[in-house]
């Protein structure tokens, strides 16, 4: 067996290899490589092979170097408890080890699951069309900007975003706008939500896209979305709304407030707190159907007249349209979308609404308790909050965050005297500890 010295995942015995080489008509494997000597490589990377067990031990040891902290972190990446059934079903190898559904007749299962995911997003957004996933909220926002560039090309090249926007999201958006010659500008906020009067003064023909978020990055529920939608309408700007799949289950329907496109995170269902790995939502009205980025699954029929599913409208996609495609995305987040769909199905509408309502109640309750401490005010903004809220502290915020970390709790420091705290079902049982730690360090 050659396996001892090579990849453990190639089944060839030495005899088989020799027979195959003979069939091809060459002496050895080296003869098959058509690489000039000038650029050939000797194979020495200095990477020692390890056994499975050694690698599991090694990685466990590495990951154990992460401090064991109770996280009250959010700002765009949220963890909720993922029921065991999600892991067990999504981890079925028939899902996990499959590829993009280019042969639909042997991919009906995944196609149907993605069709169902799209349908859930249609219900949650009220819009006509949802694709079956982008990478994350930030890249979905970037894709929305390039959509605006295509469908609103006569209306200028400014993308207007809230001044309080997660920096990483803004940076990703800038990179998508760079290629489309769009300019990102901000509009002011008032006490954690959009300053609609200032926005009305700023809106105009040069705005191709108007972006608002609810909840905002500070966890505030935006109160005047319909007015923002009207402003976008009046100036023919694309109204893009950012949210997440849990919040969407209770907040006013994006369609009802005039959103043309909804972007955001769906990974708040189905994904563990995976270092920021995400699942981007992209939903829009029928008007933009042929401009949608990414993959779409459609219902059709097979030769027997039975309903069947297939990837559709692929002439928008890079593998057919090349430089005129609506996006360069190819590999997306299909398996994560499957996880989100299974999680949503497991919760059902009741469970989803309960989870979302808890995000409001827990945040209000925790803010109230922190507000009761001397040296802290919470929430900073006089708004309804979803999962998270800002805290003003008398002491320098970075020092308070460091001290809290020493007590075993992670929170964001977002300004000289501003912290941000996020509570979900995962850490709701640890709020007593957090409040006690605050009391200790303030």
């Amino acid at each position, binding site marked *: 067996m050659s396996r001892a010295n*090579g990849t453990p995942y190639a089944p060839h015995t030495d005899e088989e290899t020799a027979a195959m080489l003979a069939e091809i008509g060459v002496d050895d494997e080296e003869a098959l490589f058509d690489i000039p000597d000038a650029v050939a*490589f000797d194979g020495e990377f200095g990477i020692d092979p390890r056994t499975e067990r050694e690698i599991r031990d090694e990685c466990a040891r590495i990951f154990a170097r992460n401090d064991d902290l109770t996280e009250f972190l959010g700002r765009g990446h949220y963890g909720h408890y993922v029921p065991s059934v999600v892991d067990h079903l999504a981890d079925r190898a028939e899902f996990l080890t499959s590829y993009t559904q280019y042969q*639909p007749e042997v*991919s009906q299962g995944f196609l149907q699951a993605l069709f169902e995911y*799209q349908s859930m997003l249609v*219900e949650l957004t009220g819009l006509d069309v949802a694709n079956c996933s982008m990478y994350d909220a930030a890249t979905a926002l970037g894709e929305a900007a390039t959509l605006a560039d295509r469908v609103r090309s006569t209306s200028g090249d400014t993308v207007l975003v809230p001044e309080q926007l997660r920096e990483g999201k803004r940076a990703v958006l800038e990179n998508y706008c760079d290629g489309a*010659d769009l300019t990102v500008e901000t509009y002011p906020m008032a006490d954690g939500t959009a300053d609609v009067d200032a926005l009305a003064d700023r809106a105009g023909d040069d705005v191709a896209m108007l972006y608002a978020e609810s909840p905002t990055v500070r966890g505030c529920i935006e109160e005047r979305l319909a007015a923002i939608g009207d402003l976008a309408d009046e100036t023919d700007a694309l109204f893009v709304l950012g949210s997440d799949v849990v919040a969407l289950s209770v907040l006013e329907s994006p369609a009802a407030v005039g959103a043309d496109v909804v972007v955001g995170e769906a990974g708040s269902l189905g994904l563990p707190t995976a270092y920021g790995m995400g699942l981007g939502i992209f939903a829009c009205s029928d008007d933009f159907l042929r401009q949608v980025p990414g993959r779409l699954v459609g219902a059709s029929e097979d*030769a027997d007249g039975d309903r069947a599913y297939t990837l559709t409208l692929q002439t928008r996609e890079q593998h057919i349209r090349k430089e005129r495609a609506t996006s360069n995305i190819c590999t997306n987040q299909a398996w994560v979308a*499957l996880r989100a769909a299974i999680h949503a199905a497991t919760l059902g*509408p009741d469970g989803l609404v309960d989870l979302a309502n808890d995000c409001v109640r827990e945040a209000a309750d925790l803010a109230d308790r922190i507000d009761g401490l001397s040296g802290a005010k919470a929430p900073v903004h006089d708004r309804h909050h979803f999962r998270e809220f800002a805290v003003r502290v008398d002491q320098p915020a970075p020092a308070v965050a460091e001290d809290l970390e020493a007590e075993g709790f992670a929170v964001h420091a977002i300004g000289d005297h501003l912290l941000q705290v996020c509570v979900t079902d995962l850490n709701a049982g640890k709020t007593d500890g957090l409040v006690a730690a605050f009391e200790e360090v303030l």
Partner: protein
Amino acid sequence: MIHDQANYEREAEGVREPLLSEKGQETVDVREDSPLPDDLTREELTLPNPSEPETARHYTRLSQMNWAIDAGPYPLGSCTMKYNPKFTEDVAADPNAAIHPDRSARSAQGNLELQYRLQEALAEIGGMDAVTLQPPAGAAGELTGILVAKAYHEHHGNDRSEVVIPASAHGTNFATAATAGYDVVELPSGDDGRVDLEALEAAVGDDTAALMLTNPNTVGLFERDITEVADIVHDAGGLLYYDGANLNALLGRGRPGDMGFDVMHYNVHKTFATPHGGGGPGAGPVGVVDELAPFLPTPRVRETDGGKGYERFEPEHTIGKVHGFAGNWLVAIKAYAYIARLGDEGLADAAAKAVLNANYLAERIDLDVPFGPFHHEFAATAGDRDAADVAKRMLDFGVHPPTTKWPEMVPEAMLTEPTEIEGRSSLDDLAEAFNLAYADTDEALDAAPSRTAASRIDQVGAARNPRLSWQALDGE
């Protein structure tokens, strides 16, 4: 050889797995028990409400109507569908790794260490100087690499507007260049299927920002003149971009950095055997030479205290970010584990066996295979048969067909990449399926597939009358 596809037997007419919505939906009055005022909430939410056992059965049945590498050969050209080792799933499932991305560097030393180690391993494998793990997929890696090249040119005051791409390149190359704001100059293939140096000379010039190249290319041919290609592009002031989609064939045998490439992406979900999950997540780390490192996305990870710790830092002229957080972290972990499992010899052997398998299979099939010699994949031509029909018939013989009708330089192309994981008997089965389908009657091809979960699906109808949600099926 014909496998008995127990899992793929056709259901009796009309009793396929129904949509969850068809099993029953529930409408919830959202405002009834809401802590929010009515004007901030929706009135109601309507979604399926299956019990957990119903959910388990639904998704189990759906999984069974799905081809997967664990179920059989999956020789899609340029997709590198190889076996995904099971232990990497367990490594990635470590709860200690599942931390929030905004953790302080001090409290996230484990994740930073693994990021650093993977960066170093990838740099070594690609012959690059610096690597970022941030891009969440191959195409995202392409965009990152091209934006880095663009920033480099702009920093040096070079006003360049074009990216040159061979006609046979992956569609993502073209779409990426356009997304980054470049005009695309398409380079026709030479008579031998490779880059034609004269055509390249004519295509590059003062406007050339970069040439995007796949090597081996999309019909499995190594670009033997790569040093000349690099010289031509560099002499014109352009950068050379390596599309890592076919890196599997080069592991341990050649490194893009040694060939003159300045920037590359790695498709870790292909080359390093991380599960493709029905279309993602993947990950598309990007490697660059020293001159381009200051432009990489932020943050990067480096050692501190002589290797005792790790920290994040912002490259001097960073392009900013290409993903909201750190990219597809769980995929990165699996890639690290796979690379560690194989080591130097295993990686080189993976390339050797992948190349052996492609050449063996090309030898065993009755279809014409133009060009050659091949590395990891080859484009057979179905000649006067319709490649898509031949592919559908192959499904009936218990294998997944190759990529069809691409690249266009081979008429009725069947682009086939068996990877290193198929043994001789499996390759013989594949060849037999190829040959039986290719030789079959027109009637049989038209009627195919007949032994799969669905018979031939009307894809034209799906596009003409788009129904993209169960809401759109209402009333049918």
